[in-house]
């Protein structure tokens, strides 16, 4: 069978004589033997270009189905066979209606087809981003191995400017990596030994070797493509309406067309030919395609666009939930905050000395706060001093001898009997107020300084939460931390409501309670938040693409950044708004188009010939696909 393009070109070329005649008509000119020329060219057009419509229409008719092809087939067949009848009984012919309807409908199909391919292929193109092969280290040799042959455990060397073939962990070297194709993060990320690298991302400046941990279908990119493909083909609940309509639409249009004929001919006394033209126009203008295309094309473009921005939307249902959201609940640690404590303040006469003593003492400790102090010492390039007589007091702190002095680092339980100056006491209260954890550093029996440690909010958290507040969403923090700590962070980033001291297992219960009055989104990092993520109306997982996050979230953010939440909500809303807009236009088009074609507005001089009805029909489905494609260009606030 010929492609649409071929069928279109044939019909266009063959209809040229008819077009010439139409242009000449106002000048009183006519092609010689027009009827015969029209008969021959139209017959060819019907046989070559329109016949497939007839064939499909008949095949579905046998199944008790009717679709767009049915309408085009009836429209063209009626005009064509009537014209043959008219020609041999000496009446005016309407071959051009049959011919032009075919031309326009096929034109619409050709354009629509190419645009639809455009809409669906954007994500599969992601897979083209993959490297074709990789340099595998075998002993002291380096061998080029094609992508499909890579195995878990292979050591792969990556040079500057090369694509990273698969997912893995760096074992040697370091580099900056452009991960924008997967996470949407435009800044290069610094990676060192022990850091994960993602397949298909681009190595920028260093050479390193990594050990492959995931290959083939298990790689993050393959999983993303799989997920997005599912999302693109999922159903949005709003579609159920059009599913129902599509079953009834075409038969009802046929009935409307018959009624049009009867009313014009029998009730209004017009000629049978005029009545027939109205009836054919009704058949041809009705466009079930626009209705059918409205949702899937927008879903396809919207989810594809989101994926490129590092936002994976699972399915059409999620879009509709997002549209109804009234509250966003955040996990604290790792979601709003960085997830690892850092030293924020050092209060002392000699800050460097305090840091040096604390770091030297903590070097042997495994306490999480210790790593914050050590990291700070490393950043400040403080040298550590040797310690002797190390004693650890469980839950209080540590003591040791440094340079013949007894030095201690600990919490308030350790310093109960130690001397604390008024000034330090004041600072201590202030830091406590800010929700920071404070450790005391002292020599002999005297506290000489304070170190405040906090799991600080991510740089973008405040901006993101402000934007959400501005959208009128209720922002809530749900955390296992102590109320004071939680409130301090909430205040800093602008969160309105805090629910603190919640055990991980209870989070889902609180979400359940919130759901009684609100439509709730929960934002978490996916590792222990899975129940809360699934309980919420919309689960937004920020896991930089861990398996659990992909499993339990309705939306998955590839980038560990709260601005992604804003982006995700905006993209979902825009996509859903586009679906509604498309459906609205598709309905309106039919609601207005059919009465015009039926000659309802003939009183104000508004009528449509069958050929123009065909053009309008073609344009309506093109406009729906075009409107969906425009989703690729909508502006986002972040």
């Amino acid at each position: 069978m010929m492609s649409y393009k071929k069928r279109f070109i044939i019909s266009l070329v063959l209809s040229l004589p008819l077009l010439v005649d139409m242009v000449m008509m106002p000048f009183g000119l006519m092609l010689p033997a027009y009827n015969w020329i029209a008969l021959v060219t139209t017959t060819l057009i019907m046989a070559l270009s329109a016949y497939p419509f007839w064939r499909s229409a008949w095949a579905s008719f046998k199944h008790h189905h009717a679709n767009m092809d049915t309408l085009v087939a009836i429209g063209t067949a009626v005009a064509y066979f009537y014209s043959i009848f008219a020609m041999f009984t000496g009446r005016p012919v309407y071959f051009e209606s049959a011919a032009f309807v075919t031309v326009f409908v096929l034109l619409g199909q050709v354009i629509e087809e190419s645009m639809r391919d455009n809409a669906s292929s954007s994500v599969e193109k992601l897979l083209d981003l993959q490297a074709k092969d990789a340099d595998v280290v075998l002993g002291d040799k380096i061998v080029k191995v094609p992508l499909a042959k890579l195995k878990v455990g292979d050591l792969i060397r990556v040079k500057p400017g090369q694509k990273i073939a698969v997912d893995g962990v760096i074992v040697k070297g370091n580099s900056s990596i452009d991960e924008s194709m997967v996470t949407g993060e435009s800044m290069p990320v610094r990676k060192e030994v022990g850091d994960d690298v993602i397949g298909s991302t681009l190595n920028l400046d260093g050479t390193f070797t990594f050990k492959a941990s995931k290959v083939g279908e298990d790689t993050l990119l393959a999983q993303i493509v799989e997920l997005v493909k599912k999302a693109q083909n999922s159903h949005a609940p709003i579609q159920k309406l059009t599913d129902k309509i599509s079953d009834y639409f075409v038969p009802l249009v046929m009935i409307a067309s018959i009624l049009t004929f009867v009313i014009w001919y029998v009730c209004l006394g017009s000629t049978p030919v005029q009545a027939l033209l109205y009836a054919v126009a009704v058949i041809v203008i009705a466009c079930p395609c626009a209705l059918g295309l409205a949702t899937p094309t927008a879903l396809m473009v919207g989810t594809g666009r989101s994926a490129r921005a590092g936002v994976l939307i699972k399915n059409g249902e999620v879009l509709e939930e997002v549209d109804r959201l009234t509250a966003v609940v955040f996990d604290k640690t790792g979601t709003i905050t960085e997830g690892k404590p850092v030293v924020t303040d050092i209060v002392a006469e000699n800050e460097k000395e305090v840091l040096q003593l604390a770091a030297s003492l903590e070097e042997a400790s495994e306490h999480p706060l210790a790593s914050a102090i050590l990291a700070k010492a490393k950043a400040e390039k403080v040298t550590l001093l040797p310690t002797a007589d190390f004693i650890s007091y469980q839950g209080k702190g540590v003591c040791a001898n440094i340079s013949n002095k007894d030095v201690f680092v600990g919490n308030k339980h350790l310093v109960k009997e130690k001397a604390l100056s008024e000034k330090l006491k004041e600072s201590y209260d202030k830091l406590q107020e800010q929700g920071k954890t404070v450790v005391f550093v002292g020599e002999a029996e005297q506290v000489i300084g304070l170190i405040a440690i906090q799991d600080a909010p991510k740089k973008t958290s405040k901006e993101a939460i402000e934007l959400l507040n501005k959208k009128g969403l209720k922002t809530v923090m749900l955390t296992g931390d102590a109320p004071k700590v939680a409130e301090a962070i909430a205040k800093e980033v602008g969160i309105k409501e805090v629910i603190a001291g919640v055990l991980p297992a209870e989070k889902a219960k609180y979400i359940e309670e919130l759901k009684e009055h609100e439509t709730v989104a929960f934002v978490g990092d996916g590792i222990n938040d899975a129940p809360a993520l699934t309980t919420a109306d919309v689960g937004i997982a920020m896991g930089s693409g861990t398996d659990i996050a992909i499993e339990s979230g309705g939306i998955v953010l590839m980038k560990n950044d709260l601005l992604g939440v804003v982006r995700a909500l905006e993209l979902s809303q825009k996509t859903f708004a586009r679906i509604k807009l498309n459906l609205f236009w598709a309905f309106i088009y039919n609601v207005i188009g059919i009465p015009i074609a039926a000659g309802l507005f003939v009183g104000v001089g508004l009528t449509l010939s069958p050929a123009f009805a065909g053009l309008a029909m073609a344009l309506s489905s093109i406009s729906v696909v075009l409107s969906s494609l425009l989703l690729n260009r909508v502006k986002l606030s972040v």
Partner: protein
Amino acid sequence: MGKVITVIVAIVLIGFILWWFFDKHEQVEVKAKKTGGNEQEVKITVDGGYSPETVVLQKGVPATLVFERKDPSSCLERVVFSDFGINELLPQNEEKKIKFDTSKAGEFGYACGMNMFHGKVVVK
């Protein structure tokens, strides 16, 4: 006289349309055939719809759906299983094999790319 006949013909046509398209017509279910080894296969002809419209697969047995599109209409050129993220192009007059996951029992609808034609796979 012509007008009376027109009205009668119109009424008959409308009645026929209502009966043909809206009245319930029996649909047959077709069970998949076992093929060599522990697999099942069922053929679905795509021509103005899917025939058979409902196929029944046995749970847990790897299944292949063989689609053959005879219809030239672009409406039917893709088949979409929205539950599985399957969206495949069906080349005209060629057999297109689609592996179907039968690990879960249930009814899974599928449709053409424009969601105009519907079929169903029942796993039990």
